[in-house]
């Protein structure tokens, strides 16, 4: 049997060698910390502190704004300096709580548990909810919602997503290598919720050491299996991962739970472990600071809210002028125009590139080569969809299945005419969704 995989996809330069040998370093923030109230999908959190309040590490500073929402915790102790709009990664201003770090790290008391068996399912989900855990792979979907599907009995697979298919990123790799017991522990917590489910730890075969380690550590576990995947982007995209490991297909009108699957990212599973076993809320995560401009590319465990400028300093600063700075991976991350930005629960990487390949590749005419078709994991015709998007032809766009795009970027990457296909399709898709909402 060949390695598990999906149809389509691309093989970009992966750049992981820059930072893969660097152990995770804990980083303590210096100055003020900024906590945007919206670090997740769903309603923004509501602040429960005021200017001048003293907060401790792990204290709730904003509570969830609804069921599909998540609370936010202070990652340092100190004084609330204010609640004001701040620039975020997406380029918009958003309300944020600002805390001045007093460097004392006075911590609230966590409620640890001795054994998982002593907790009921409801208690576990409550703990996850209270810890403010969201999907840390980038989407930021509140995890307690994911863990409460309509029919829990129908969940057959818990997939831990250790594919890390985005180029340059090594945070999940380091986490799996250095703290595999947390990953396995977190998976066990989730399995406790779903009696019928099997747990798969899914890892691309460019990380053989992780696969070996995980396989060894899960030897005696009857409900946990390690699934090596073919190294190919976007192997870690939810739909591709589900297809590769279970052979089931999920389309845009379905949730993974409809195919009996729940997919969680490595850091999310680790956060679940800490939240349930140790009672510790989500306030740390691993971030890879890398790129050809960085003097000493590294993996850091950061406190959420840390300013990105501090991360660059800790990575030895820059050895070259970057042309582009990306928060997240090069395929799906956001380009930013400055570094005075706070890290959040969903920031996985900070990438400094000396050359911007996008502006260096002017667009030419489509030659109908079909490379976008070969690369598309959603089995679409991106070049046609992009043309329909440019012409605002909503009918044709929907007929040619444009709404099934997952914005992975494979089409734009492979286009020899350098057309911005993903970008056009993504914006048209958003527009169609907005129009539908208006009509409803």
């Amino acid at each position, binding site marked *: 049997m060949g390695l598990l995989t999906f149809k389509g996809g691309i093989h970009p330069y992966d750049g992981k060698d820059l930072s893969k040998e660097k152990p995770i370093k804990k980083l303590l923030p210096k100055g003020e910390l900024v906590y945007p109230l919206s670090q997740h999908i769903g309603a923004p959190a509501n602040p429960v502190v005021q200017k001048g309040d003293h907060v401790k590490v792990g204290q709730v500073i904003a509570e969830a704004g609804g069921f599909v929402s998540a609370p936010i915790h202070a990652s340092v102790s100190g004084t609330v300096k204010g609640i004001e709009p701040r620039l975020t990664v997406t380029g918009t201003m958003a309300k944020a709580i600002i805390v001045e770090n007093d460097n004392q790290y006075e911590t609230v008391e966590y409620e640890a548990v001795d054994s998982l068996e002593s907790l009921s399912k409801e208690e576990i989900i409550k703990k996850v909810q209270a810890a403010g855990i969201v999907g840390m792979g980038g989407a930021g979907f509140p995890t307690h919602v994911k863990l409460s599907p309509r029919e829990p009995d129908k969940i057959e697979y818990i997939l831990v997503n250790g594919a890390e298919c985005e180029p340059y990123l090594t945070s999940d790799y380091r986490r799996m290598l250095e703290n595999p017991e947390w990953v396995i522990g977190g998976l066990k917590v989730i399995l406790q919720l779903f009696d019928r489910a099997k747990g798969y730890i899914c890892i691309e075969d460019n990380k053989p050491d992780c696969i070996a380690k995980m396989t060894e550590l899960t030897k005696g576990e009857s409900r946990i299996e390690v699934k090596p995947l073919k190294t190919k982007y976007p192997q870690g995209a939810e739909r591709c991962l589900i297809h590769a490991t279970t052979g089931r297909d999920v389309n845009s009108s379905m949730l993974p739970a409809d195919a009996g699957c729940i997919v969680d990212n490595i850091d999310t599973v680790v956060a679940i472990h800490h939240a349930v076993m140790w009672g510790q809320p989500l306030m740390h995560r691993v971030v890879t600071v890398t790129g050809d401009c960085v003097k000493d590319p590294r993996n850091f465990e950061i406190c959420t809210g840390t300013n990105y400028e501090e991360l660059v300093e800790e990575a030895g600063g820059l050895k070259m002028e970057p042309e582009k700075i990306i928060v997240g991976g090069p395929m799906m991350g956001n380009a930013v125009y400055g570094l005075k930005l706070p890290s959040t629960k969903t920031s996985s990487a900070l990438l400094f590139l000396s050359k*911007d390949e996008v502006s260096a590749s002017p667009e030419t005419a*489509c030659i*109908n080569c079909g490379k976008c078709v070969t690369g598309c994991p959603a089995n679409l015709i991106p070049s046609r969809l992009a043309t329909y998007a440019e012409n605002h032809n909503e009918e044709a766009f929907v007929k040619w299945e444009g709404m099934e795009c997952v914005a992975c970027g494979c089409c734009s990457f492979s286009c020899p005419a350098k057309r911005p296909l993903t970008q056009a399709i993504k914006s048209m898709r958003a527009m169609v969704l907005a129009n539908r909402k208006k009509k409803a």
Partner: protein
Amino acid sequence: MNDMLKVSASPHIRSKTSTDKIMMLVAIALLPASLFGIYNFGIRALLVMLISIASCVATEWLYEKGLHKKCTIGDFSAVVTGLLLALNMPPTIPLWMPIIGGVFAILIVKQLFGGLGQNIMNPALAGRCFLMISFAGPMTDFTVPSGAFATVYDTVSGATPLAAMKAGETVELMPLLIGNIKGTIGETSAIALLVGAAVLLYFKVIDMRIPGTYIGSFAVFMVLYEIFGMGGLDINHLLCEIFGGGLILGAFFMATDYVTTPITQNGQIVYGCVLGILTGIFRMFGGSAEGVSYAIIFSNLLVPLIERVTIPKAFGKGGAKKA
């Protein structure tokens, strides 16, 4: 730090392939066949190629200059058109004909339809068919010019192997593979063409979907024709039909022209089958021994229809399972 950072929507990286690199690879892949053409037919073949390429590139340049459009001769597509056009001409052709063909291919077929990516027929083949219709005599005069470096294998009737077969002669397969036969400049050597095709396949410029279904469906057509029309299977006749004439050149280099083929993968299979059957019909039931050029430009026109019925099912919507 520089505060003039570049900001754009993801993805932020691009593959190294580009249109000009692809076109250059196609031109390189045509080199073995071109060199063999020169060896087979002499310097005159080279002259035809140079004139054809020059007239294609010049037409594109003049048109774009004249209309103040962005100059696109750097993408090498006009070079490829010119070279393909030359490879589709007999070596004895009057030297002003490639000029007419090149101007027609680039100006009428390509630029007037909107330039690269917009033409509805393969420009080189449309140019060839235009010349065929206008100057049938010189376009089908396959006498070998003086100055050929090779000794050209001849059929009893002195025609091209395909025409000889149509007249009922039996021809040998080996010269068809090597290429020391009569024919257009670039179509004679199956081996040289296949070497070029291997280059294109290796660099993933083309895949086997169209050439495979084209040659496959043509072979099936021929087998059926032989059994029911000729009174029995004739392997030598079958292989000579496949390796003779313009089929290999057409299947790997012209039926795979991105612009004029369906973009849907199932559509490409349909397209290949249509080509194979049409070529068979044209060759067996048509007036001429050849059928590849007309089959391809006719099928080019069917592309929008083929695409319309082969829109793929999106992932997760009950489409084809994984490969």
